[in-house]
């Protein structure tokens, strides 16, 4: 493409990008800076960005201060992984059915799924609590995994469906003519071809589940061994004071798994979200 911007247009564009990025990233940077400061220096007046007394001490003391921190991080990861697996197991067949079969009420059902998305988990939390109580699932991993998966399913179905719709019907027809059944075709032909789409759905589901678990853990779980990280972070809220620097350090370590997943799979996300947008 020909570079068609003049220098001042470029300046404008880059300034805009800078402002936007600052807005988005500033909290992370401040969190990182706080995690490096000694606890007494956190609310120092006047504010100074760099100080000589900075160190990584909080990253070591936090494990002693909250001994189960590693367990919370693993819990978070475990809950999100299970929620993702469970959600995918529901999303893939549902999306396949929405994209391939004609049946009555197909579109209303799809609309219903999307409507659930709009209501959101917070509104349904009390009925869900009763449900969990009746099913005897309170204070278990399942109480956090199942709702976590359930609330990611609608978006997942929608994403997956639009991906499956782009897979040519002839691929299935060819398999059908060659004698393959529905399940065999789905397993051997459709899923491999849809893999980039599945990865995209898996990542978005994982990230959503990771972000959502706080609400479910807070409501459905009181067993501190099963707490995910966001609940664990509460233990930095001491009786007299909040250990801000360790809290920030633990938060940053806590988002690390998501960050890693994202960094390694982000090329799939970009490819998956834009595939078919341009004729290849």
């Amino acid at each position: 493409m020909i570079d068609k911007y003049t220098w001042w247009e470029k300046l404008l564009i880059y300034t805009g990008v800078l402002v936007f990025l600052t807005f988005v990233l500033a909290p992370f940077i401040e969190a990182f800076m706080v995690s490096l400061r000694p606890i007494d220096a956190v609310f120092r007046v006047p504010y100074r960005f760099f100080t000589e007394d900075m160190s990584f001490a909080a990253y070591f003391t936090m494990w002693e201060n909250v001994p189960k921190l590693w367990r919370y991080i693993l819990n978070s990861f475990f809950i999100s992984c299970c929620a993702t697996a469970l959600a995918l197991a529901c999303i893939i067949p549902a999306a396949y059915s929405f994209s391939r079969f004609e049946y009555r009420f197909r579109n209303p059902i799809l609309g219903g799924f999307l409507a659930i998305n709009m209501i959101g988990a917070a509104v349904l939390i009390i009925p869900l609590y009763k449900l969990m109580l009746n099913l005897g699932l309170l204070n278990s991993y399942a109480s956090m995994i199942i709702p976590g998966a359930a609330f990611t399913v609608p978006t997942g179905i929608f994403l997956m469906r639009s991906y499956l719709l782009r897979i040519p019907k002839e691929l299935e027809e060819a398999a059908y003519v060659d004698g393959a059944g529905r399940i065999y075709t789905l397993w051997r032909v459709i899923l491999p071809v849809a893999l980039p789409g599945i990865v995209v759905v898996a990542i978005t589901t994982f990230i959503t589940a990771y972000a959502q678990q706080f609400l479910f853990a807070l409501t459905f779980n009181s067993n501190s061994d099963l707490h995910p990280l966001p609940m664990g972070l509460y233990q930095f809220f001491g009786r007299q004071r909040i250990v801000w620097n360790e809290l920030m350090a633990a938060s940053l370590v806590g988002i690390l798994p998501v960050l890693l997943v994202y960094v390694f799979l982000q090329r799939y996300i970009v490819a998956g979200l834009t595939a078919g947008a341009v004729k290849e």
Partner: protein
Amino acid sequence: MGQLRMDNVQKRFGDTEVIKGVSLDIANGEFVVFVGPSGCGKSTLLRMIAGLEEISEGEILIDGTVVNDLAPVKRGISMVFQSYALYPHMSVYENIAFPLRVERLAQPEVDKRVKRASDILKLHERLTHKPGQLSGGQRQRVAIGRAIVREPEVFLFDEPLSNLDAALRAEMRVELSKLHRELEATMIYVTHDQVEAMTMADRIVVLDAGFVSQVGSPLELYHRPQNTFVAGFIGNPKMNFLPATCTESDETGATVQLSNGASIRVPVAARPGLEGQALTLGIRPEHIHVDEGDLVLEFTPTVVERLGIHTVTYSTLPDGNGTFTTVLEGTAPAETGKPLGHGFNAADCHLFDGAGAAFSRTAPMADTPPSVLPTGPDHTQ
């Protein structure tokens, strides 16, 4: 064996009737081509034979068995799609082996069959490649390979060459004809390319809006079209039609008068009593000669295309509706804007009645090998 019979087959999508009653017999080992304008139902008919589309009415029989409710694989057919429909994540080998994997054949047998298919299609060096790494022609061959490993009795092709460029299309055409001879299987082939139809077919089925317009050998359709639709569809450039009025007719011919007053007697099996009726005179562009013939009409070419071997001219008819096309010799003295004598012989003419049905031509067709021509003038179906 691969004998196929269609009995008043119909197809409706909701309220729209797409196939309106097709009856056809296809012998074992025959190469039959379906042609017709876009949207006439060629693909639909083929997909009904394949078992991908339900049959609304009528019956399809393969080797005497009604297959209406059988799954494709039970019908003994295999199909090659226009878009190839190769599985992008599988190697060429696995693509070709797919139908055998479905059947759960043992590995040695799979190896043997894939090898045989790749020998026929010259694909052995490509077996480990992915479809994405192949050229269009090679992909098409893989698709054909996948169709032949199962050794079906009937092959169905839906415009298999339309995604290829002209040179490759010509090459694949020859290869397909060769394949047909080698496999001795029945092939049903859908195309809108006349050259493919004319060169490969044993018989051509011309479809017009859900009906079979005519069935016959390529040259039979060319020389004895049964109606104006087939006459206009087969042949390129298409046949010229001139409105005419009958002045005299009997069993051996009809004399017609054109709008400019000129008269010609066409040797067709007409019947007496057609006097005064509006008929249509058809004459192919390639049968026009400059200034010579039984009848010479003067038209002024508006466009002259010189192709070297031929000169193609287009003239607007005097009454303003329609174009008169000619294919003349390369050295023909045609010039844009200069009147030219368009001469033709009565024996080359076609005559159609008011409803568009042809009168059988009785003139001997000297330039045609007798083996490809039907014997009687009333040869139909």
